[in-house]
């Protein structure tokens, strides 16, 4: 059992390093863009330093979010938890709240239904499935329906018309010739 645990630890560490590198790449692109916007060059160690700080912050955030969710008696982290974790600065909290409102406005699906679903999931089989796939599916299916039915309708209407017109054109052409 002990050797097993050590193997797991090593694997975890390498996974953590890969994640840290990917995180650093994202941070570099964000920082460079921000520097360009301010007309500033950024020396490389500073970008690396900021990236490490952000990574540490992300880990701390994960811990906070887990504790907040547990305190609320949930097993999945909510937007409310993230807003709560930004409470130390009022401006930050306000801007995060406005972003969350934007995200909510994007899919004003019936919230009661979703809440019921998530509650059920929490109780029964939330862990065996992907974390967010179900909700995403719920959001996407109606959109696809709304976009596609009119499209199909238009195509079925226009295609015969177009066909008829083009055939008439051909016929006219042959008559002229």
């Amino acid at each position, binding site marked *: 059992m002990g050797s097993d645990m050590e193997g797991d630890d090593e694997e975890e560490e390498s996974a953590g390093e890969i994640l840290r590198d990917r995180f650093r790449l994202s941070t570099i692109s964000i920082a460079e863009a921000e520097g360009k916007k301010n007309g*500033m060059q950024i020396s490389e160690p*500073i970008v690396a330093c900021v990236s490490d700080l952000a990574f540490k912050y992300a880990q701390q955030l994960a811990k906070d979010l887990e504790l907040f969710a547990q305190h609320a008696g949930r097993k999945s982290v909510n*937007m409310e938890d993230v807003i709560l974790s930004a409470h130390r600065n009022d401006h930050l909290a306000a801007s995060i709240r406005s972003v969350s409102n934007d995200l909510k406005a994007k899919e004003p699906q019936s919230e009661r239904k979703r809440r019921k679903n998530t509650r059920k999931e929490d109780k029964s089989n939330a862990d065996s499935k992907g974390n967010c796939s179900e909700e995403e599916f719920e959001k996407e299916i109606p959109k696809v329906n709304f976009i596609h039915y009119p499209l199909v309708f238009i195509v079925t209407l226009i295609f015969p018309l177009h066909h008829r017109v083009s055939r008439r054109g051909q016929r006219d052409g042959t008559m002229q010739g």
Partner: protein
Amino acid sequence: MEGNTFDPDLIRAIFQLVWKRRAAEREKNERTETMEAEMGVGTSKKNRLTSANANALKLSCELLRLFVTEAIQRAATIAEAEGSNKIEATHLERILPQLLLDF
């Protein structure tokens, strides 16, 4: 600017690594406390793994992006006040305490 943010999947992977680590630690602590009921521990560990929904992850990405942009912007204002056009370590040092207090 919207394209320049973190990948929610990456953030989820980082979060899950932390959560897994914490769950393992908790399990270890519990095992030392109660040596029996190993079966119970095995099943309860599965139940305890935390997950995050999609919007919460997007919001966390935004929070982390704000952290990075704030760091750069504040350092940039200090650098500008000192009349240099490259952000150096001293500029970051100056803004770091307040930045860490704000996040």
